[in-house]
């Protein structure tokens, strides 16, 4: 239910179709980002900005968001808007709580996926078979899931040792892996605080120290989905249902089936995201523990332009800033200010070269504002650090040229036999 961007294109801006697509590899962007962070770290001495600890927390904070975003990707690529991600994640947490407690963590994950799929089945039934507005169905599923999880928690966990009406007993996490030699070596290297080297080391340390197998599962799911959706006939058919279901239908594709598969997969992945929150992040099921991550995941998917690489960036941006503010606090967030200043300056130069003078001046003014803030203070007050992930996301979106393009038939009602 979002408006087609083209009517809103700022006057005079070229239509997206005509803008030559220039793709800079995601890896280069990441490297530039890391170099920038590293420079700031060395200059300000705020080493927590990318310490192994911060990075590990960032990964942990990003994974559930990325899974939610991936779930959204599956569904929306097949043309079904899924605002019910939050609900499917909630169902995932309760599934993980129940099965994880009785049968162990891996059963917990599978239980979570099945529970997520139950929510998804409802969504698919409503939107695909009955052609109900996708937003209405999604909102309803969020309400139902919230109620169901609370009701089931009360029923299932009330009498258990260590459990209660709103929470499960403690749950075992799936295995996490530490690569002995590398982990320590990298942490040593990180502590040297060298430019770029230490930053890369802390990244490596983050993924070799206490890496949850569920994180690995998430990575496999993301890469696997990218390959499946963009490199196979199955993926082509599924995506065609999101771009032009009538065209797909006239070519003999069973659109209902693909939409169903997509939404169910979406539910399973969202459920896995819920399992991560319950089993890995928290070690317990609690009512309301998803804390709106389904919505954040949706935002990350839109941020990522409905693409796997993009949604990973969106989730990482959010997860990183969220982890940073909680773990490292005001000083590290303070260091972010100068990064923002540098990025803004870069954007201003770009905009100026493109002839967008007003935009360039606006960026420049904001950049100067951030610079003043940075140089006149030593830390960001704790009251504001909490806003970091949200403000950063808004800022990045506001600065980035918006060339978002959702699947053409995303959210539209489709009924069989209406082609032509």
């Amino acid at each position, binding site marked *: 239910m979002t408006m087609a961007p083209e009517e*809103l294109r700022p006057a005079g801006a070229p239509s997206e179709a005509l803008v030559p697509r220039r793709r800079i590899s995601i890896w280069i962007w990441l490297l530039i980002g890391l170099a920038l962070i590293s420079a700031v770290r060395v200059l300000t001495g705020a080493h927590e900005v990318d310490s192994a600890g911060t990075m590990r927390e960032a990964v942990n904070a990003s994974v559930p968001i990325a899974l939610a975003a991936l779930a959204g990707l599956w569904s929306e690529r097949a043309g079904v808007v899924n605002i019910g991600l939050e609900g499917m994640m909630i169902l995932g947490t309760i599934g993980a709580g129940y099965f994880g407690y009785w049968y162990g963590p891996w059963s917990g994950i599978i239980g979570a996926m099945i529970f997520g799929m139950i929510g998804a089945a409802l969504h698919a039934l409503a939107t695909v078979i009955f052609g*109900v*507005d996708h937003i209405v169905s999604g909102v309803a599923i969020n309400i139902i899931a919230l109620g169901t999880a609370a009701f089931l928690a009360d029923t299932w966990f009330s009498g258990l040792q260590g459990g209660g009406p709103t929470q499960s007993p403690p749950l075992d996490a799936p295995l996490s892996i530490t690569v002995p030699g590398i982990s320590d070596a990298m942490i040593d290297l990180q502590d040297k605080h060298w430019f770029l080297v230490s930053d890369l080391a802390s990244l490596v340390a983050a993924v070799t120290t206490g890496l949850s197998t569920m994180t690995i599962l998430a990575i496999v799911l993301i890469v696997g989905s990218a390959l499946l959706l963009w490199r196979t006939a199955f993926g082509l058919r599924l995506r065609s249902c999101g771009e032009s279901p009538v065209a797909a239908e006239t070519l003999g594709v069973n659109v209902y089936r693909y939409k169903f598969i997509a939404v169910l997969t979406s539910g399973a992945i969202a459920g896995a995201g819920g399992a991560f929150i319950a089993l890995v992040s928290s070690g317990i099921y609690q009512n309301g523990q998803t804390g709106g991550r389904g919505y954040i995941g949706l935002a990350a998917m839109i941020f990522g332009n409905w693409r796997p690489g993009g949604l990973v960036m969106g989730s990482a941006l959010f997860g990183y800033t969220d982890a940073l503010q909680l773990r490292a606090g005001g000083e590290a967030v303070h260091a972010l200010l100068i990064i923002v200043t540098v990025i803004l300056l870069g954007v201003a130069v770009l905009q100026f070269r493109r002839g967008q003078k007003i935009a360039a001046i606006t960026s420049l003014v904001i950049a100067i504002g951030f610079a003043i803030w940075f140089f006149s203070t030593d830390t960001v007050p704790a009251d504001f650090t909490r806003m970091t992930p*949200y*403000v950063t996301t*808004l800022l990045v979106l506001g600065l980035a040229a918006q060339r978002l393009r959702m699947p053409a038939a995303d959210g539209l009602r489709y009924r069989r036999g209406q082609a032509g």
Partner: protein
Amino acid sequence: MGKLDLRRIGLALAAPVLAIVVALVITCLILLAAGSSVSGFLSTIFSAPAERNVINILNNASILYLSGLAAAIGFRMNLFNIGVEGQYQVAVFTAAVFAAQGWLPGPVNVVVSIVLAMVVGAVWASIAGVLKVTRGVSEVISTIMLNAIAGSLTAYLLRKVGVSTGSNLATEEIPQDSWVPGIPLLPGAPNELLGLALLAVLAGIGYAVLLNRLKFGFNLRATGTSASAAVASGIDVRRMVVVSLMISGSIAGLIGLPLLFGSSHSYGTTFQAGIGFAGIAVALLGRNNPVGIAFGALLFSYLAEQSNLLEINARVSPDIVAISQGVIVLAVVIAYEVVRRYRNALEQRQVAAQLSSSAPAEATSEATR
């Protein structure tokens, strides 16, 4: 014709009735599966509400209604404004702080505070609008982010200006001459209808007039159904986006006011949250129609009120009612679809039946949707 009309009316009523029945059946099945008392549930939910409960239902419905309207304006524009939650929190906080200063005498203070709340809500909402039209930021993302920022911001400001009483932290109390008295609607009840609940009625009328009678409302609906046609017709869509979000935000600004001036008299850590999200469901349940939203708000409020007694009277977890609410939302839209399809099939059969061997095909169909 008369017979057909009867059937028409029957079909029109069929959808909501069907939906509520289905929702009840599903709820009862869940209760059965969980081993809870179905009869206890039904007798509690359908027990006649006492007078004081009726007042509660009306009070909460009026607040939900405002929230539903705020969301619905966005939906009519095809904008998914999830930001009502943040908008009303920022607005009610500002109004509470302003009204507490007592700079203005009694009712004037109230009126100015109401205007202030609307302005603040509108300004907060306009951030999303401006980001959308100038930078193309999806309002779904920006309003999610703005909700979180609003929460942090009000919490921060509350710590700055608030006073703590015991464990509670709240803004200063509004001077007594600016309290809006309740309306003793039912003499037997210990509680009263919130005075500013009337804002809901006014807003509802305003919404209906705006949408159906005013040129602006036409432009809004036109843009909502087809932005491309709107542009071609000369509507400034980018301006519409900002303005409609601001109107949505200004109505969102009203949400907290009946409570603020009628019962809590200050904004504190315990001020009711989550009304903005509930409003989305209510708006969708009411199909963004002013009367429909009123029914949705009353239904949700009724269920919530009755569920309060579930635990005490029937030993059933009140969470079950959340399930019922969600199922109703879903069931209503599905039921409408089913009834619509049934009606189409019926019509199709009638046309086919009327067709004598070479009768010309005659378009009798009306609005198909």
